[in-house]
């Protein structure tokens, strides 16, 4: 039976992307953090964030309009969760 990803796993895996790709300390990765203002990402980082999330979660989000609305880490957790729910 296929393992269904949990919300906690989504948080852990997303945070891993921020640690590995953007070298952000674990302590800073709080749900309400704004990924631009608080975590310091810029437009080029967003390209890499998309590539990394696609690889991490096996999803396709490059052309998904909802990516543009992402502001906080929590937004990403919710977005990935909704994508996973849509798969079922």
């Amino acid at each position: 039976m296929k393992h269904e990803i949990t919300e906690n796993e989504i948080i852990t895996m997303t945070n891993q992307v921020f640690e590995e790709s953007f070298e952000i300390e674990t302590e800073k990765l709080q749900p309400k953090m704004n990924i631009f203002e608080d975590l310091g990402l810029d437009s080029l980082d967003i390209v890499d964030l998309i590539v990394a999330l696609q690889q991490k979660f096996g999803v396709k989000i490059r052309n998904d309009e909802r990516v543009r609305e992402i502001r906080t880490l929590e937004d990403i957790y919710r977005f990935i969760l909704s994508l996973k729910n849509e798969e079922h």
Partner: protein
Amino acid sequence: MKRVVISGVGAVSAMGNDVSSLVKGIEEKKSAVHYMEGWDQYTGLRSLVGAPAKLINEKAIPRKNRRSMGRMSIFALQATEQALADAGIKHEELTSGRIGCIIGSTMGSAESLNEVFEIMLPQKDLTKLPSMKFFQCVSHTAAMNVSQCLGITGCVIATSAACASALQAINVGYDLIRLGKQDAVACGGAEELHPTVTGSFDVLFATSANYNDKPHKTPRPFDRDRDGLVCGEGSGILVIEEYERALRRNAKIYAEIIGYHTCGSGVHVSQPDKNSIALCLREALASANVSPKEVDYINAHATATIQGDREEAKAIKEVLGDSMPVSSLKGYIGHTLGASGSLELIVSLAMMEKGIIYPTLNLDNVSPDCQGINHVMEAVSKDISIMVKNCFAFGGINSVLVCKKL
């Protein structure tokens, strides 16, 4: 025209990550050429030797600057920071628009280019490509990254003429300062060692393939048993500066640049040509208003290819005669391609300062086709007032620089 002097030097090479380790290694006649582990997995790659530099302290570069850098840009940044510090140029001056950055290379980061191919080609899929690969792969990657990281707002230019890239960068900087368009320029070259880089020479049978089991014995410039070049990597950066400005600052002056020439052979893309090398030497000396008899030392390009060394030796003999001392530094640090002109110029400046000529490493028996010039085979003491630096590139591009001790 304004006068131009060299007031700072910085280097990352296979000998170490600063100028003193580079000069010390050469002074001690060390070879930085090694057998390259893992290269034997490439079918058809005959040359398994190289002169690799070590990447150190790269995490000290802020992520947002580092993310667009391949190895060669990191080497170039570290060499530039050394050169600026050596020259005593402060960070605040870099944003004046009067200080430029001109760094050449054969191409962008070879490692990054290969990563792009590995990501993109198997499934012809672009969706996995990170955003920064473009910035690491472009031909102006070193100049762009160094200037962005240091906030340099003067002229930013990348010369790309393979092994003549660094000298051409210095040529351009020299002209910009002479014309009064810049006060100082950090200039030189950077290059990266990769099996595909060695491979590109290997398919042309231009690399050394007979010394895989004794790497310290190759390359062998001008030697009877030479069998081709060995690729190296690193970066050499010089701060060149308007003479009066350097005097006002009480800066250390390594030498004055008094002339150069660069030209195409118009003959063949890979076969070196004695006549065009001789022409380049003559024109460079003429631009410096120096007669051949006044030259005290020539730092040869001599990469240890059969044809290249032969043609260069013939041209030197024709223009500078049989008594002027000649040596090549490729035996110590390999051929650093786009960085060779500046790295070897930096070592030549050390020779000028110390009054000693370092010999050509691995030159045990002068090849019959390279005879008739004064090969330096053991270190000799010599007061060097005027020296010449040669660089010749695939594509038939020659470049010669003339420097004078002040």
